[in-house]
């Protein structure tokens, strides 16, 4: 398979430059929002809450809040990254270049995932200011965060190709991802839910992601880590296949 590293690097650099050009929106804004969660739920309310599964409440919510930001931001970044060239017409250059699906994904999705990882690092650093926590499996946490960032960057890329308006671009992150993350055990353990809500909560795929990240942090989770990893890998593979089909057929890209 042919892969043009220079083309991928050009796309990647431009997307990263775009993120830093809009640093307030891309980086500062989500960090500020998450910090407020840590202040309110972590420090103020968290100090009065019982530990969950032996983990202090302030520390318990860190993986969920991290996931909340990671999903929303990587999805939005990747969707915006490909939607804007479609909207402004600058996609002509990408389509007329000797660039295939691999370079395009490495550039756009790689940049979106990188931005997600930078955000995750900043958020974890910020969380340290408000709550004490230790990461039980740091390598697993890093790998897991990268997998989730890549998966949702791919998902965002699909969203950016599907959307034909700014409204549609915002619908999925705002109306689906954010509520599902809130209901996916960000602020509570699914095990603590009364029946049948504990079972219903497991119909929410985001619950598996939050639970998986929580395992890497504290060694405990609502669902087995293997299931969370498998689900994330499956999502990653599904999104990759969908994008490959989109490029093969030219759906919403080539007339």
């Amino acid at each position: 398979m042919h892969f043009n590293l220079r083309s991928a690097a050009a796309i990647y650099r431009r997307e990263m430059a775009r993120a830093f050009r809009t640093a307030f929106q891309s980086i500062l804004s989500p960090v500020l929002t998450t910090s407020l969660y840590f202040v309110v739920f972590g420090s103020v309310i968290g100090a009065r809450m019982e530990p969950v599964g032996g983990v202090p409440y302030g520390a318990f919510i860190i993986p969920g809040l991290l996931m909340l930001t990671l999903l929303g931001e990587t999805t939005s970044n990747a969707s915006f990254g490909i939607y804007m060239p479609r909207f402004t017409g600058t996609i002509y250059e990408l389509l007329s270049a000797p660039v295939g699906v691999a370079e395009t994904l490495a550039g756009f999705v790689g940049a979106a995932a990188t931005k997600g990882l930078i955000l995750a690092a900043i958020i974890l650093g910020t969380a340290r200011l408000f709550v004490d926590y230790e990461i039980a499996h740091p390598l697993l946490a890093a790998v897991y965060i990268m997998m989730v960032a890549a998966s949702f960057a791919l998902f965002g890329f699909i969203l950016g190709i599907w959307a034909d308006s700014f409204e549609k671009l915002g619908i999925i992150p705002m109306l689906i991802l954010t509520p599902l993350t809130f209901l996916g055990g960000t602020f509570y353990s699914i095990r603590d839910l009364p029946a049948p809500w504990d079972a219903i909560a497991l119909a929410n795929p985001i619950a598996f992601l939050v639970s998986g990240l929580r395992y890497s942090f504290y060694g405990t989770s609502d669902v087995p880590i293997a299931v969370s990893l498998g689900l994330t890998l499956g999502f990653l593979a599904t999104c990759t296949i969908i994008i490959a089909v989109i490029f093969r057929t030219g759906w919403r890209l080539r007339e």
Partner: protein
Amino acid sequence: MTEPILSIRGLTKTYRNGPRALDSVDLDIRKGEIFALLGPNGAGKTTLIGAVCGLVRPSGGTIHAFGHDLARDWRRARARIGLVPQELATDMFETVERAVSYSQGLFGKPRNAAQIEDILRSLSLWDKRDAQIRALSGGMKRRVLIAKALAHEPELLFLDEPTAGVDVELRKDMWQQIAALKERGVTIILTTHYIEEAEEMADRVGIIQRGRIRMVDEKRAMMERLGTTEAVMELAAPLAALPPALAGFALELSQGGTRLTYRGGNGEGRGRAEVAQLTQALTRAGVEFTSLDIHDSSLEDIFVGLLGDAQEAA
């Protein structure tokens, strides 16, 4: 004859729920020429360019560029093709130099600052290299698009309406830029609404209408074959009929016998020579005229005439 740099055979494009934008187009482009593709709005010019450049998925037919089949070996072909689109589509918040540098990288070329400087200087953009594109005038933005298209040193360059919406002075400046590109060996295919533009620059002209190529020919040959000269003479006294001495000329008597109109020639000088002979014949026949107005048909006249004929035939 040398192998064409671009060879299109039976190219067809039908948009979903739309008309047939391209209908069995056959076209060969020669290395080093400027080829002007003329046609009215919606004729299929931009679709044709899009099909070659990868923006449009053809419904049928084949395209070979530099001997590569674009359906299979598109990477090699596209690396040698550049496109300047009709719309001013570029990242308006990017600086000029970064935008050109991005294009260079996107087409797989290593960053070459000296080449970027050369391109920007040749397009009078060097002083604006650090300016955001949104701060530039429309003409400058179009130059940025040309600079981006040249960043990977294409051998075949498509210019889709390169002077649309720019003032006369800038248009002539753009013509010089295009001529300079040809000097550098770049093969250029341009679409334009300005027939004057094609007349000024093109080596060959293709006329497309309703997705079909109506005619492709050398500009000079087309002018020679289809061009005409019209001479209108106002006579001092009305004529009841044409004198026998004028029988060899293509003449029409009108306005009650006071206007004599000649239509003939080939648009390349023969008509004017015949008008000179006609004036001598009139003098010899004792026919006086008070005014003479001569008009050679332009490429635009030919273009309009061809499209009109085709519409009547349809």
